């Protein structure tokens, strides 16, 4: 026999409430174990700084994700590492250097400006400039090629008549 769906969900909810209550009881009785789970992650200031730093860093396992957003195992380890370094009072720069020293400039979404990254930083602008220059050259050449037409007096008159005719036809 099938039970109606509503009682099913109600039972479900009841169970969830019960489970939640159990969890709450356990954590109330033994608050130490809850603290041990993530000691530094609970410090809001540390967490905030960790997130600002890791948002600037690439997760090398899933390269399109930041270290802050990635759920990869390595990303979790690195977040733990960075939390600990914040706890040790390291500056943002020291933490960045730690990461770059191990994984290279590639971990930074904004790599530093230096010899090997010049093309990366200025390549797009160079391409844009080349494009604009090419466009200007082409437009100038075209302007030169289309020489002003030398009309005789008769042709001029005919042209004006035609223009007038066109205008009168356009009027409602």
């Amino acid at each position, binding site marked *: 026999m099938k039970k109606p769906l509503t009682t099913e969900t109600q039972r479900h909810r009841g169970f969830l409430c019960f489970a939640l209550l159990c969890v709450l009881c356990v954590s109330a009785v033994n608050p130490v174990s809850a603290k041990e789970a993530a000691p530094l992650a609970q410090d809001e200031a540390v967490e905030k700084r960790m997130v600002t730093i890791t948002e600037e860093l690439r997760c*090398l*396992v899933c*390269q399109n994700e930041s270290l802050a957003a990635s759920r990869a*195992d*390595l990303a979790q*380890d*690195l977040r733990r*590492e960075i939390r600990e370094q914040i706890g040790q009072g390291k500056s943002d720069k020291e933490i960045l250097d730690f990461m*770059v*020293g*191990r*994984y*290279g*400039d*590639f971990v930074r979404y904004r790599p530093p400006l230096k010899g090997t990254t010049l093309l990366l930083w200025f390549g797009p602008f160079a391409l844009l400039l080349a494009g604009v220059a090419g466009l200007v050259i082409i437009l100038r050449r075209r302007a030169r090629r289309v020489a002003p037409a030398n009309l005789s007096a008769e042709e001029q008159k005919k042209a004006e008549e035609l223009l007038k005719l066109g205008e009168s036809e356009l009027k409602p």
Partner: protein
Amino acid sequence: MTRFLLPLGIFIVLVAFLAIGLNLNPREVPSPLIGKPAPAFSLPRLHQPEAKFAPQDMQGKVWLLNVWASWCVSCRQEHPILVELAKTGLVPIVGLNYKDQRADALKWLDRFGDPYTLSIVDAEGRVGIDYGVYGVPETYLIDKAGAIRFKQIGPVTQDVLEKTILPLVAELNK
């Protein structure tokens, strides 16, 4: 004629750039550790947890540090190559068992063969972070002075072994 040659030229250059770019492996990020001293550590050994191993123990030898794990699928791919390499005795291989369970790791070695002079346990992956490990398996070639000379990201293939690793080992052993 130049009217057509110029766009064609630009197009060919573009295609060449794309062809090169698409054939590069984005997962192979050059390691900043090449040429630098191998980061120090002291880790318990897999078979004798009470004994420890540090890179200094290999001072004066050219050796390979191979990062592996029983959960790592591509490790299985390179494993027969390492087992064969160990048989030749050309270069000692130290295994860094990365974020693994000891029992699983031992079982894995029993099943597929143990090419390692010794294996060490990096259960939390902290040494892995120091070595810039981001995709197991990874293999480091370390020289007599303890500097990293080469890093293979991903499985060691026969090709890489014969064309890069072994010639480099021979050169460093001179």
